[in-house]
């Protein structure tokens, strides 16, 4: 086989694998949907204690880093915006620029990135390790569906934690912009505040929260699926963790794009 043929073959092979993987992902989502509906009919069977544990782990424990990152993001955005807006003498629009981009895009996205690195990776590692130590097998023989037992608590926790984190992240980001506006552009604080309130709306705010809920589902589902795909050795748990992060980021960006198009078409 010539070198060119091999290249073509490798590309084809990789594409085929990616396709199979996507099919796997959608199958997993399908199975999970069934489990969720079964769980909703029997709320007593949901592992509430684990759910609260993950809310604490993925929500409360992630709050400081989320706030710091979003605050820095606001500062960066503020600087970038200030330099450009000063050129055309429309300094006050910095409030619009920062407020809208944080709420619509960067708040949910930065929170999702932090959560992918923290929660997504740890979900994959946790389930992968449980698989290696036969705990997943043990669950099945004890009549617990591994999905209900391991995925649902994480999913519920993330669905609560991520939008809440996004709210805090949004506030921190806007404060970041505010600091730049007031210190660098010497804008009056009250003017900046009024401009921000005028620029943002409940719809914009809600669209960001919807995004973050979708990201929460992606991070949890991908993390858990990669964990279940781990084989019976420690290295494969490492690979599962890496792959959970990469795959989640990929699907987050895709979902972000789709949602942005949708919201734009709906006029938000």
């Amino acid at each position, binding site marked *: 086989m010539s070198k060119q043929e091999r290249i073509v073959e490798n590309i084809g092979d990789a594409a085929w694998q990616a396709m199979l993987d996507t099919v796997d992902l959608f199958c997993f989502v399908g199975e999970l949907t069934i489990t969720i509906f079964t769980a909703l009919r029997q709320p007593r069977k949901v592992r509430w204690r684990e759910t609260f544990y993950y809310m604490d782990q993925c929500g409360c424990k992630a709050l400081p880093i989320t706030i710091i990152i979003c605050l820095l993001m606001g500062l960066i955005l503020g600087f970038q915006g200030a330099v450009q807006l000063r050129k055309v003498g429309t300094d006050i629009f910095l409030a619009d620029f920062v407020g809208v981009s944080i709420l619509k895009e960067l708040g949910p996205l930065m929170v999702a990135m932090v959560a992918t690195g923290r929660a997504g990776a740890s979900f994959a590692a946790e389930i992968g390790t449980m698989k290696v130590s036969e*705990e997943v097998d043990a669950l099945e*023989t*004890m009549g617990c569906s591994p999905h209900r037992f391991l995925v649902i608590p994480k999913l519920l926790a993330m669905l609560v934690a991520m939008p809440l984190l996004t709210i805090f992240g949004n506030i921190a980001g806007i404060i970041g912009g505010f600091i730049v506006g007031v210190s660098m552009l010497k804008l009056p604080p009250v003017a900046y505040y009024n401009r921000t309130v005028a620029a943002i709306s409940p719809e914009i705010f809600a669209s960001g929260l919807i995004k973050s809920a979708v990201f929460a589902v992606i991070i949890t589902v991908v993390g858990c699926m990669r964990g279940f795909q781990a084989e019976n050795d420690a290295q494969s748990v490492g690979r599962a963790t890496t792959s959970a992060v990469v795959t989640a980021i990929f699907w987050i960006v895709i979902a972000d794009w789709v949602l942005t198009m949708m919201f734009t078409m709906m006029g938000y």
Partner: protein
Amino acid sequence: MDKSENIIEVSGVTAGYGNNVVLKDIDFTVKHGEIFVIMGGSGCGKSTLLKQMIGLYRPFAGSVTIFGQDIVEATLSERRVMMQKFGVTYQDGALFGSMTLAENVALPLEEYTDKSVAEIAQIVRDKLQQVELGEFGDYMPSEISGGMRKRAGLARAMALSPSLLFFDEPSAGLDPITSADLDSLILVLQREMKTTLVIVSHELDSIYTIADRVIILNAATKGIVASGKPRELRDNCQDSWVRDLLTRKNMKLENKI
């Protein structure tokens, strides 16, 4: 139930992972009330065979019948009913790290029964007592030793008082005294509760002590090379590899003396 009735029937099972065939054409039966031991070198597929028997994996070919019902073809809900009737102890205990020992033992009770919290707590206390872990109910699995983890796993497998217990390597990785303790514990349980036991093991001492019948797997042939009573096999088996396997320990001892 009739004493001679077969509780497990494995016929023509070929199994493995992906394209890798580990077991080929396995046939055997386990009778009610006996202690049945699966032997063989490391990596010859003992755990794999056990997982086929409890319906965790689908065999490539063949069938596994437990309590007269095909576990391979059973639907999810049928399998759920079947699984309540047997307990499984895994090679490393497979306790859930995020729960205390008591919660681990309580889990099958919560899942399968409608017992009240107080009833469950009572059963959990009894079962932990039986494996001599009475005071350790509030410990996490990471805070106890390997042998204790195995015993806790046994307590969890017994939570529903099953009539059939699967036990993957009860004594592997334990010192001889602890392992002998575990053997006698198994014997006591079997006498008290009339349980049928399927044990994976390569500890010769325990096999001679507890086994009613043994099958020996070989990684090279991927099948059963011998089956019968352990002492009879050791003395009368035609296959010298089997005789060596069953006397290995004694030979080593003789060399030392």
